[in-house]
């Protein structure tokens, strides 16, 4: 049981960090209202594009620093489905990605964006937009 409690306190610490990180996001969204998902085909026309690979139940790279306006594409290389969901469940939310399926999102505004896999919530990632 002690192990469970330790796990809990660690989880709440992580959650606290995420809440602090997420606090900056709503004001940015309200200010611009311009954050929106882009299709994969659009990525080919856009020079600023970057890929996050989902493999072995983790996001690689787990942390990423990009310039505003960059499109990020996640690709699932695992044998099981994963999702890419912002911690607020609102900013971006992919469907379940089967093997080799992709999801893209363009980060228009500076800020720190934390996300996770809603199927395997131990999988977390962070994108810092400068």
């Amino acid at each position: 049981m002690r192990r469970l409690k330790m796990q809990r306190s660690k989880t709440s610490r992580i959650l606290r960090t995420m809440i602090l990180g997420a606090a900056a996001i709503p004001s940015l969204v309200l200010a611009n209202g311009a954050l929106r998902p882009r299709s994969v085909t659009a990525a080919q026309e856009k020079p600023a594009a970057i890929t996050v690979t989902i493999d072995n139940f983790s996001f690689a790279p787990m942390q990423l620093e990009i310039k505003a306006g960059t499109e990020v594409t996640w690709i699932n290389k695992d044998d099981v489905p994963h999702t890419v969901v912002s911690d607020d469940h609102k900013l971006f939310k992919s469907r379940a990605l089967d093997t080799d399926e992709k999801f893209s999102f363009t980060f228009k505004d500076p800020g720190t964006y934390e996300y996770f896999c809603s199927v395997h919530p131990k999988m977390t990632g962070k994108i810092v937009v400068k």
Partner: protein
Amino acid sequence: MSDYIEKNQDNDGVDRRGFLKCMAWAGTGTLCLVQGGVLKSFALNDVLQEKVRDLKGDLSFVQISDSHIGFNKPANPDVTGTLREAIAKVNALPTPPSFVLHTGDLTHLSKPEEFDTLSESLKSLKTDRIFYVPGEHDVLNDNGAMFHERFGQGTQGDGWYSFDQKGAHFIGLVNVLNLKAGGLGTLGHEQLEWLEKDVAKLKSSTPIVVFAHIPLWSVYPQWGWGTDDSEQALSYLKPFGSVTVLNGHIHQTMQKIEGNITFHTACSTSFPQPQPGQADSPGPMKVPAEKLRGLLGITDVNFVRGKHTLAIVDSTL
């Protein structure tokens, strides 16, 4: 063999030796007998030689789990075939089970055609009724709406429920919805409140069987193999003399006893997963084709009224 538990620091009744013994059960088939909170375990083959049928009780039921219909990768390209083999195994039992529990991950991708195949396949089960709880693979994209419509009729809240059979109280819980970043499985406040009320009316002598997809004990949190608020749920079950918790999710058998509660996880009917910490991730484990069926299986549970006895037998395909 795993060696991540070095000492029994958590005072949870599992030392390293005991844990390794549990792990050695995986895929081999085990009979477990719980008497007054004391567990006796036997290799299934030994038990069969001593005629396991003599243990027949007032009630027998079978647990199957993690069918993952729709999965088609090398770890098992024919999950429908192995589900059929599991069904044949159930149908060959000397006493047909009163009912079957499916502890989730019926499908791999929550697709309608996957649910169709699962339902069609299970029609050949020789039993009166099948009870379900969802796995995280059954609630993708729609927060479980399709699963609920097909398998959750008449349930409470997001799909939890209870029923009584031959003096035992069965509780199906849902711990795969509304998962939070960085966390494990979740029951949630509403379900915990319902559980507290549901068991409040029972006599403490009532045997209780709880079933849910993700383990309700901390198997290996690093891989998400646990439930954040399970401790709260288990606190409501402390007054009862006999509590058995049946889970799936980890695709291997594992068992432990904590006070009055026996925890047991079932094999998958689809593909095996690695032992905790023995791989980079909990993804499907590829094994030589001739070894696959030795790692898949079903769980047969016998309940003898008045003796507070549950006999749990795992058998591989």
